[in-house]
């Protein structure tokens, strides 16, 4: 009884202002737009969506997920709500074909046996919001935490496994994650969620809100999300062979500062008419992370808080998006984005010195513009062609050593340098339904020319066929490239042992063949299974450059994966199970002791991952219907990273682990007629599993700590 009362009190505190604002928006009569009878329940929506999920990422046109010429997973807003996903990182960690290593600064996504390695920051995939990359350009990394996007503004997340450079250019390498935001009028007019709880013994809190409306031909949406979390007190895993720890730490192996702050805001203003639309949007994102597990040196924070690495980064984007419907079958789209980002003033890196710490000075700004024509001469044929120009001005400031005593830079300073990077791309894509709905063929080609690494040609072909009403098969082949990031090209070591840039670094390439079959024999059941074979060439690996390391295009990798997922959904339950099996081998392209020791077996990526989830309606009071469920993930033993193996002097595996999340939540609770309120008590990693996950700098990462929090979500 205590829980509902306290929850209601909290509910009133949090949503009182929201109700007030919304009532103003609704007008004098105060009537909600919909009543209880009109409101669609989540379960109803789920079933409908299961049967008819539309996606747009695979071909830049709206199509059913079955027709899309890509191996694609769709995570809907309802999925996010049901399972309590707090961020896109969590979504991906539960997605088949992905394995995330959280280094407690920025999670690093690996796909189908391939990991980006040290500092990759999920750069092996392209993450977009409404079709636009939101990468942090200096590292080509993607932020996947709360700072990426307010999830309340998200309609669905389309996750493509496989290369997509033929449509999206550089870095759509092993996959694409396209976050589709919801239409402003669909937020009704405000959705909000707050969560308060504990990360083991430390407090945590999170908010996520989106509001918007359509006013005639105009619409607007504002959204924001933020998080405070503190993962401090995690232990450095005992498996770590050679962490870099200041001597004065002694025998302590507990982290003191893994505090996390994230904030993202976005605003959008649009005009829609019969001939098209114009939208202006702005996006700002920032993060701050305590760096006790940063790769430069570990456990550097002191109890008095005067020392310790802080990673603080920010980025800003302004977008213009126009669509002109020139004729009934010809559209012209123009998109342009101004972007800028860089290291924030709070950023500081401890390198183990008693006398100084290091301040980084890196920033970027630039413009990314695209003109695209979409031609549909017949209902069975569409052609998309476009050109894209990207200009990126990188300021690579020399890192400054700051004297602790004076807080002033020390005597010797380096020289700042800049790099102007330009990429021009042109692409064309054709989709033709040879037999409607029996057979659809897709082909595409793209050429990019970059001022540093020259021309790159990528392509894709695919066939999707409905063998029967229930069975769909896809056969796909594509190529992609991963561009060297400015960081890998020009990095200056912050400490002995750090990364040194390699201006000769070339793009990495991948070619992938995939076959997938889906079988949906009933409204409530579906199963999808697919195999893929990827061949990476020119793979960049960090190699010794004296006491430092630098990336070189030395290696190749072949990866065979088999991914299967089955879903069962009905009004009262929701179940899924999936497994990934991966066999991957590498040719390091190196000789000598280290290469012989690490061998050709794949490192870091688990050979198998099994995932499952179940959510059931449970017996409860009629006015407070409840559901109970959870998600589990069983990750197979992973060979440690090359660095850890060399440091240990022998190959070793990190043990398999099982991670479990549990949820007890209300369902279809309408405290206010027509507006659903959802209370959820969620436990993440409730078995307090520690992993660890493989690290790349001589130590391993403990997995995310356990969390217990109360979440309140309301749609008004």
């Amino acid at each position, binding site marked *: 009884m205590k829980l509902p009362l306290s929850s209601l009190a909290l509910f009133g505190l949090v949503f009182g202002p929201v109700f007030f604002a919304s009532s103003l928006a609704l007008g004098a009569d105060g009537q909600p737009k919909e009543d209880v009878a009109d409101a669609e329940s989540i379960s109803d929506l789920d079933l409908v969506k299961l049967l008819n999920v539309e996606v747009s990422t695979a071909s830049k046109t709206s199509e059913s997920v079955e027709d899309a010429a890509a191996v694609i997973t769709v995570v809907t807003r309802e999925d996010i709500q049901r399972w309590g996903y707090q961020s896109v990182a969590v979504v991906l960690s539960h997605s088949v074909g992905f394995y995330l290593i959280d280094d407690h600064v920025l999670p690093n996504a690996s796909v189908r046996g391939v990991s980006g390695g040290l500092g990759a920051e999920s750069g092996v995939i392209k993450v977009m919001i409404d079709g636009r990359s939101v990468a942090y350009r200096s590292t080509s990394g993607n932020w996947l935490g709360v700072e990426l996007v307010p999830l309340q503004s998200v309609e669905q997340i389309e996750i493509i496994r496989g290369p997509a450079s033929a449509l999206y250019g550089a870095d759509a390498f092993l996959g694409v994650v396209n976050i589709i935001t919801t239409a402003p009028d669909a937020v009704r007019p405000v959705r909000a969620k707050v969560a308060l709880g504990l990360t083991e013994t430390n407090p945590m809190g999170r908010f996520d809100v989106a509001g918007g409306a359509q006013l005639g031909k105009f619409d607007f949406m504002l959204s924001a999300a933020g998080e405070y979390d503190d993962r401090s007190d995690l232990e450095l895993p005992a498996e770590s062979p050679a962490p870099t720890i200041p001597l004065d730490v002694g025998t302590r192996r507990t982290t003191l500062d893994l505090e996390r702050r994230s904030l993202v805001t976005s605003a959008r203003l649009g005009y829609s008419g019969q001939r098209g639309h114009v939208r202006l949007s702005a996006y700002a994102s920032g993060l701050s992370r305590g760096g006790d597990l940063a790769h430069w040196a570990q456990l550097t924070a002191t109890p008095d808080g005067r020392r310790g690495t802080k990673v603080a980064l920010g980025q800003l984007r302004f977008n213009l998006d126009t669509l002109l419907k020139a004729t009934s079958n010809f559209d012209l789209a123009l998109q342009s984005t101004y972007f800028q980002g860089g290291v924030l003033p709070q950023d500081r890196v401890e390198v183990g010195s008693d006398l100084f710490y290091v301040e980084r000075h890196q920033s970027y700004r630039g413009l990314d513009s695209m003109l695209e024509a979409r031609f549909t001469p017949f209902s069975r044929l569409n052609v998309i062609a476009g050109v894209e120009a990207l200009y990126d001005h990188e300021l690579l400031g020399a890192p400054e050593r700051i004297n602790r005593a004076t807080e002033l830079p020390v005597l010797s300073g380096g020289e700042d340098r800049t790099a102007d990077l330009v990429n021009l791309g042109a692409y064309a894509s054709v989709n033709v339904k040879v037999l409607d709905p029996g057979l659809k063929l897709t082909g595409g080609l793209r050429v990019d020319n970059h001022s540093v690494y020259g021309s790159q040609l990528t392509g894709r072909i695919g066939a999707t066929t409905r063998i029967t009403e229930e069975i769909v098969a896809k056969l796909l082949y594509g190529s992609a490239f991963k561009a060297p990031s400015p960081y890998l090209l020009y990095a200056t070591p912050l400490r002995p042992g750090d990364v040194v840039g390699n201006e000769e670094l070339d793009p990495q390439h991948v070619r992938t063949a995939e076959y997938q079959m889906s079988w949906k024999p009933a409204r409530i059941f579906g199963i999808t299974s697919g195999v893929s074979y990827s061949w990476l060439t020119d793979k960049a690996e960090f190699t010794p450059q004296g006491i430092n390391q630098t990336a070189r295009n030395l290696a190749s990798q072949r990866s065979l994966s088999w991914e299967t997922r089955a879903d069962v959904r009905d009004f009262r339950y929701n179940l899924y199970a999936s497994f990934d099996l991966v066999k991957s081998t590498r040719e390091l392209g190196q000789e000598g002791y280290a290469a012989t020791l690490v061998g050709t*077996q794949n490192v870091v990526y688990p050979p198998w991952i099994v995932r499952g989830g179940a959510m059931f309606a449970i017996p409860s009071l009629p006015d407070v219907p409840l559901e109970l469920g959870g998600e589990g993930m069983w990750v197979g033993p992973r060979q440690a990273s090359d660095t850890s193996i060399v440091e240990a*002097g022998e190959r070793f595996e990190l043990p398999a682990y099982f991670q479990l999340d549990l949820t007890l939540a209300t369902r279809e609770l309408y405290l206010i007629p027509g507006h659903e309120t959802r209370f959820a008590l969620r436990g993440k990693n409730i078995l307090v599993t520690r992993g660890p996950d493989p690290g790349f700098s001589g130590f391993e990462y403990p997995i995310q700590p356990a969390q217990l929090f109360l979440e309140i979500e309301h749609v008004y």
Partner: protein
Amino acid sequence: MSTNLTRVALAALALVASGCSEEEAAPVPEGLRVGLLLPFTGSASATASNLERSALFAADRINAGGGIDGQPLRIISRDTHSDPERGVEAARELVALGAVAVIGPESADVAEQVAPVLAEENVLFLSPFVGAAADPSRTCSTPWFRLAPSAKALGEALAKQAKAANVPEVAVFYSGSPYDRALGAAAASRFPQLGGKVVVQAELDPDAQSYASEVRRAIDAGVTDVILAASPRAAALVVNEFDALSRTKPRWFLSPLLKTDLLVQNVAPQALDGALGVAPKIDERDGNFPKTFAQRWLGDEPLEGAYFYYDATALLAIALAKSAYSDTKPELNPAMLEAAGPPGEAVRWNELDVGLQRLSEGEDMYYTGLTGPLRLERCGGRATGITSTWTVEAGRIVDLEN
């Protein structure tokens, strides 16, 4: 139907899972096995990969000439982890793998522990660059071959260099490794004999993350000139911390191990300008060796020690060939002395294939190295090794005319 599907699924599962089984350790290749003992990890790990590449490069050229007596020369590398105990363990492993000789280990303290183990096993021990703190003895039961001047000789040369630069007072910093300690101690002992004064003498823990207290001591003593003998990592920390504390940039006198871009790369661009250093002299300066080395290793250039590792491998190959082809079949240790100097015809670094061929045809040959004539004394010391000097200009290492 469902049974069939299940069978297919299980078969596929087994197929993929079978590929996930643990990989076997790489087999040790057949041939004449030469152990390479280097610090690939730990505090002294800066240069190991580059030195290994040099030995492998030499082995390539040896094998291009058909190897030795029809057998390829195989380099088997093991890691000392910069630790004497683990170094001995690695040396024993190399012996167990059938190594006829061990080259390394770039650390005097490891070398001193390893030498008796190898002597007991009758395995030749050859230290190309950093191997011994003290001068080689004149009497011995088993030779320990060394191609570079001793740490003591280099330390004294560094003291002379400082004095020649009219330095009245210095601080002497050296790491706790026996090589650096011997070099630093020799410099600290020689400098006052030359009329100078050592105002601070400090030993650095090679594993420390900071040397703040030592640096403060030097600055408080008004030091403007520093003799430094440490690993590139430790030296970079010292230079950076001097930057952090001192208003004026000190002048550095650097040990041979610091003649590397690794140090320059990890300090502020102008921090080392004007520094002076000593190093074992390298004769081959026409650029061919670094050029071909870089071609072989994707642009990686040979460090100072790489010249010595090439010479060590090449000299050992000539000795092995002399032992194999001679009618008297001398033991390997005496064959090393024969391979290092006249009589016979000289084989240069890039003539190994031809030289080995001619040796197999009965001609008398000896090896003359990238680092000059290698003539060795009976207990393994080099009779002819001399030092050279170098400086840092605009962030680049430049050899000075000697």
